């Protein structure tokens, strides 16, 4: 009986403190902005570089940054944005996981009146501002490079990103459009490597089994996958006969290009994407009129020089 009463008191006390906590007044934070950031996946080196750039520029602008990893899940991303809205952050920077499925996150932020900036990838719902690069252009540059290397003739394989993500859709469209200019280049097949190095390496190993020496070139829609394919080709002692080009310009890929293992990487400027996204977010918080609602950061072909 004693024990039970003791527990009852415990519950009462908990409930009281609980009620007290409910009525607790808002603590005034420091006089700077809070920006919530949800990133596609921190396992991805390029995305990490964008996040680092955001962090660097946040510090320079006296902004408190909350960076969360959505771990490739659009649902997680939507929930993270809902939590940002609950937290009443001043602005949200979103690096969308998927074109359609991440779209509700943008809609919810807009409905809550919190400015939202998409970086690097798009959603169906238009955000208040957008920073990124035209992914179609990057794929076109890659195909042009391959065509030049092969003198316009040969068999090509394409490793796709995560199906349905804006970058994948655009890079595929860009590659297909560019291929029309090179009737001698034949796309044998394409398959998703889910932006992932290990998955693409396994995919390439299987392709080597099925296509063997017919393969002349591989276009991977990001560097992680390009590096995976490159490794599989090196292991099969075929790399010197196959041109591999990928997109993003992450550190590992640039090193591989310098070492003459990867043929080229199309550099996407993570540094500037992060910087511009931060600038736009701050301007939106300060309710300034934006000069441009969408900012394109151009690509460059990197061949180790």
């Amino acid at each position, binding site marked *: 009986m004693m*024990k*039970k009463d003791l*527990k*009852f008191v*415990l*519950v009462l006390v*908990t*409930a009281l*403190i*609980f009620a007290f*906590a*409910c009525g*607790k*007044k*808002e*603590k005034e934070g420091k006089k700077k902005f809070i920006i919530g950031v949800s990133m596609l996946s921190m396992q991805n080196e390029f995305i990490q570089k964008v996040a680092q750039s955001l962090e660097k520029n946040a510090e320079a602008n006296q902004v408190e940054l*909350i960076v*969360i*990893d959505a*771990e490739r*899940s*659009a*649902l997680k991303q*939507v*929930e*993270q944005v*809902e*939590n940002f*809205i*609950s*937290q*009443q952050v001043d602005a949200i920077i979103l690096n969308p996981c*998927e*074109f*359609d*499925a*991440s*779209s*509700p996150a943008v*809609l919810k932020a807009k409905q809550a009146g919190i400015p939202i900036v998409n970086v690097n990838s798009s959603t*169906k719902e238009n955000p208040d501002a957008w920073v990124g690069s035209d992914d179609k252009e990057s794929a076109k540059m890659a195909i042009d490079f391959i065509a030049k290397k092969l003198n316009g003739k040969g068999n090509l394989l394409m490793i796709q990103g995560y*199906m*349905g993500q804006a970058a994948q859709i655009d890079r595929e469209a860009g590659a297909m459009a560019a291929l029309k200019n090179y009737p001698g280049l034949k796309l044998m097949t394409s398959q*998703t490597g889910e932006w992932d190095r290990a998955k693409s390496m396994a995919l390439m190993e299987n392709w080597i089994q099925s296509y063997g020496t017919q393969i002349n070139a591989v276009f991977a829609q990001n560097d992680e996958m390009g590096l995976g394919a490159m490794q599989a080709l090196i292991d099969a002692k075929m790399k010197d006969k196959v041109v591999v080009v990928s997109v993003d310009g992450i550190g590992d890929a640039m090193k591989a290009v310098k070492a003459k293992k990867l043929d080229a990487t199309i550099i996407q400027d993570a540094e500037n994407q992060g910087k511009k996204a931060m600038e736009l977010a701050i301007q939106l918080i300060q309710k300034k009129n934006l000069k441009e609602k969408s900012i394109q950061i151009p690509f460059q072909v990197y061949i180790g020089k």
Partner: protein
Amino acid sequence: MNKWKEIIFKSQSGGIFLALLVICFLISTQTSRFLTETNLMVIFNQVSVNAILAFGVTFVIISGGIDLSLGSMLAVAGVVAALFAKSDSGNLWISIPLALLTGAMMGAVNGWIIVLSKVPPFIVTLGSMTIARGLALIISDGRPVSDLSESFNFIGNDSFLSIPIPIIFLLITFVFCAILLNKTVFGRYVKAIGGNETASYVAGIPVDRIKCWVYTLSGIFAAIGGILLAARINTGQPNAGLGFELDAIAAVIIGGTSTRGGKGSIIGTLLGVLFIGVINNGLDLMNVSAYWQQVVMGGIIILAVVIDRFYQNMKK
């Protein structure tokens, strides 16, 4: 007051209820954003899919089984629902019943195989988990199914009487399951089978038929979850619900349902689901990194069960 004491101390889920209160208190001391109406709505909205899966699998676990194929069945149902809910050609009167039927059929097949082959449910549903995931990828061609109709989107994102629709689903399924488990012959049979299967046979309970129904129910609830999830992100994703079965099972266990079968409660499962949801939300609000969240969550799952055991022993 005595009645409340009774509920808190005597019921199976008293321990988890206390733990939930303590966690809520701890979080609210750390962030003032936690105990706001909008945030509580956000929590309920976010846990709705997990809750519905967990309600279904509560029956399975009480009957002494397990269902690992929840997340995959959810994906299949979500993709089916999305394929027939396209904005141009879709019809919700076909899409939703078809998705539910798909879930029911997959669940029934699980049940049949388990009953007929006597292979442990863990292994059968481990296999069907992979099969269903493959089916989801096949029927969607590996791509997210998007361009869904406005009315489908409504299910996941709109409100009725200012209550978000997913929460309404949560409440309806909660009441349905609580009645089914506690007030019907079916519920009594499920508990009896989990408690002692041989004795149930001897007592004349149609054990095989009940078991089939339990897995069918689990499939139907996975399908409801799949429809809600697809509507919430307005896309049918073949890779949706990866690992959801583990969240649902964790919630059931935290809620005090015995993994050996025989006893458990729906209210306990709801509390377990809320417990997980509150911790996820709270840690997000406190800006704890997602990686640490997983460590904390795993620790808390073990701790909650240990506390609950301790509490049950004290009661005796």
